């Protein structure tokens, strides 16, 4: 029983991180119709910045509380990077065919990948002291790292917060209006440019948060962004591109399948995920929660 509970927790842990990445990707696409290939690198940026900040604080002999307060640093860094990227590199492309936007974000991917290497070097960066400081708890006789529960909690809080943000605030109304019909929203007085930069920043913030909370449990390594992006794609293909509910459902499916896959069929774990995505597409072309016509 304990083993089963741990599997469930691991699946949730994985889903939480995936939801943060894929949710951001989907939000950006839903509002701006831009598929950000560099999204995974913003997740990596979050991980590196947090690990770096925690490392600095540790060197200065800061207490554990400070380390926990430093966790969101990566998310903020990713948000700032997102805002800058939107303003300088993406804004000229809204009227051009989307192929160019894809290419632009691919160029960004290459640049960010190497900028991370340039700043933090080729070696992995870790922040395990945060992970270790919480110790472990006992679940039906088995030990389980307590920090993993923090990740799951952050994932759940983020999902609830995002839902409230989009369906219960004025900003959310603007966001949804822009997503449904940009020109009509603009005609009705919504400042679409501002919505765009906010949506992009929020999406990048989520990716950065994913990286920031995951880095204490696994170190930040080069290439983690590219790997994460591919999984985020599976999530949005299953759930439907542009839909947050879809990102949530997709993240849960991928999380559970992956956890089962690691124990039952490790060789074809990723292939099974794609198979599920392919089946979903054949049955529901726009994904589980997607709108038709994408």
């Amino acid at each position: 029983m304990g083993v089963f509970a741990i599997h469930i927790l691991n699946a949730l842990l994985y889903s939480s991180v995936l939801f943060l990445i894929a949710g951001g990707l989907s939000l950006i696409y839903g509002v701006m119709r831009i598929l950000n290939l560099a999204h995974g690198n913003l997740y990596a940026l979050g991980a590196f910045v947090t690990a770096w900040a925690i490392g600095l604080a540790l060197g200065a002999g800061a207490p554990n509380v400070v380390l926990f307060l430093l966790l969101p640093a990566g998310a903020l860094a990713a948000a700032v990077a997102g805002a800058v990227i939107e303003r300088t590199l993406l804004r000229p492309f809204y009227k051009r065919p989307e192929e160019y936007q894809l290419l632009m974000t691919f160029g960004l991917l290459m640049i960010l990948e190497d900028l991370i290497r340039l700043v933090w070097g080729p070696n992995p960066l870790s922040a395990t002291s945060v992970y270790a400081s919480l110790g472990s708890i006992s679940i039906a006789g088995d030990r389980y790292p307590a920090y993993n529960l923090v990740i799951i909690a952050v994932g759940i809080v983020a999902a609830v917060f995002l839902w409230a943000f989009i369906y219960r605030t004025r900003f959310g109304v603007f966001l949804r209006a822009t997503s449904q019909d940009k020109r009509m929203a603009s005609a009705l007085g919504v400042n679409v440019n501002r919505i765009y930069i906010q949506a992009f920043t929020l999406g990048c913030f989520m990716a950065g948060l994913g990286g920031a909370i995951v880095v204490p449990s696994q170190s930040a390594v080069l290439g983690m962004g590219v790997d994460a992006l591919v999984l985020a794609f599976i999530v949005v293909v299953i759930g439907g591109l542009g839909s947050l509910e879809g990102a949530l459902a997709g993240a849960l499916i991928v999380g559970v399948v992956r956890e089962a896959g690691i124990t039952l069929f490790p060789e074809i774990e990723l292939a099974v995920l794609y198979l599920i995505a392919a089946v979903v597409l054949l049955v529901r072309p726009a994904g589980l929660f997607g709108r038709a016509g994408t």
Partner: protein
Amino acid sequence: MNDTVVVARTGAIWRIAAWVVPAALLLLAAPLVIDPFQTLTLTYGLIAAIGALGFNLLLGYTGLLSFGHSAFFGGGAYTVAFLVKYLKIASMELFLAGSVLVSALISALFGFVCVRYTRIFFGILTLALSQVLWSLAFKFFWVTGGTDGLRVPTPTLVGMAPSDDKMDFLAHRYYYYVLAVFALCVFLMWVIVHSPFGKALQAIRDNETRAEFIGIRIRRYRLIAFVISGIFTGVAGALWAPLNGLASPDVLVWTFSGEIVFMTVLGGFRTFVGPIVGAIAFTYLKTYAVGFTVYWQLLLGTVLVVLVLALPTGIMGAIEQLASRMKKAR
């Protein structure tokens, strides 16, 4: 009236010949003039050009942006490696035949799923599917060699055993072999895009609804284009494997698909020769960037960003603009 058509035809042929003949002479003479290292780089460039040419049938002529062409390139390369490892085959012709077969199979399978979609969704799907192959190559390491890849020795060309000096073999005989295959591919692609089938693809690209109204079966045409595109890229992969000496998962990762897109856009995807020029230019650019700095991705990424911002029609587009401006000035 017939006469004017004939005159126009011969005029066009002369104009094409004015480009093709000097280019062919240059490529034929190249190994005699430049050193072996340069010849190898040029060989890589020609191989990439075959792949980009195939890719551009989708992007430039059908209007579909694939981010999964690494699957066909890598598929071709691994086919060669498997033929060597498990069937002890050493003939380049059999390698090519095998890779045509395998890449046709993979692209038919992928195409069946992907051509139902267009635009961004098509891109994501091709990307996602190509990563299945990558993950399989990665995980089944006892079959595929995992990250180490599989060794590919120098093959026999048209039944002739390779000479002992590998460098000399690659820089001369293999170069001409690749050049011949390249010429054949260019010719075939030229025929394809100027055939009624090619015109139908362009009609689909320009206006899907109208194309459907005049009776073009869009999905079938897209699927055929997808398979042809996959086969060309697969052939490129098969030629690449012996040259590289190793079939490795590097060419299956989706970022390699990104490089194929990059070179095509660099050359200009609106013209026939754009991908060829772009592939050769990209190969030189990457070779020197990698030799120059470990941060070559930063360099190439910046080039791509600047390219997309300032020169979206690529090298060929810029040349055309320049030419038309000079004409006006006259």
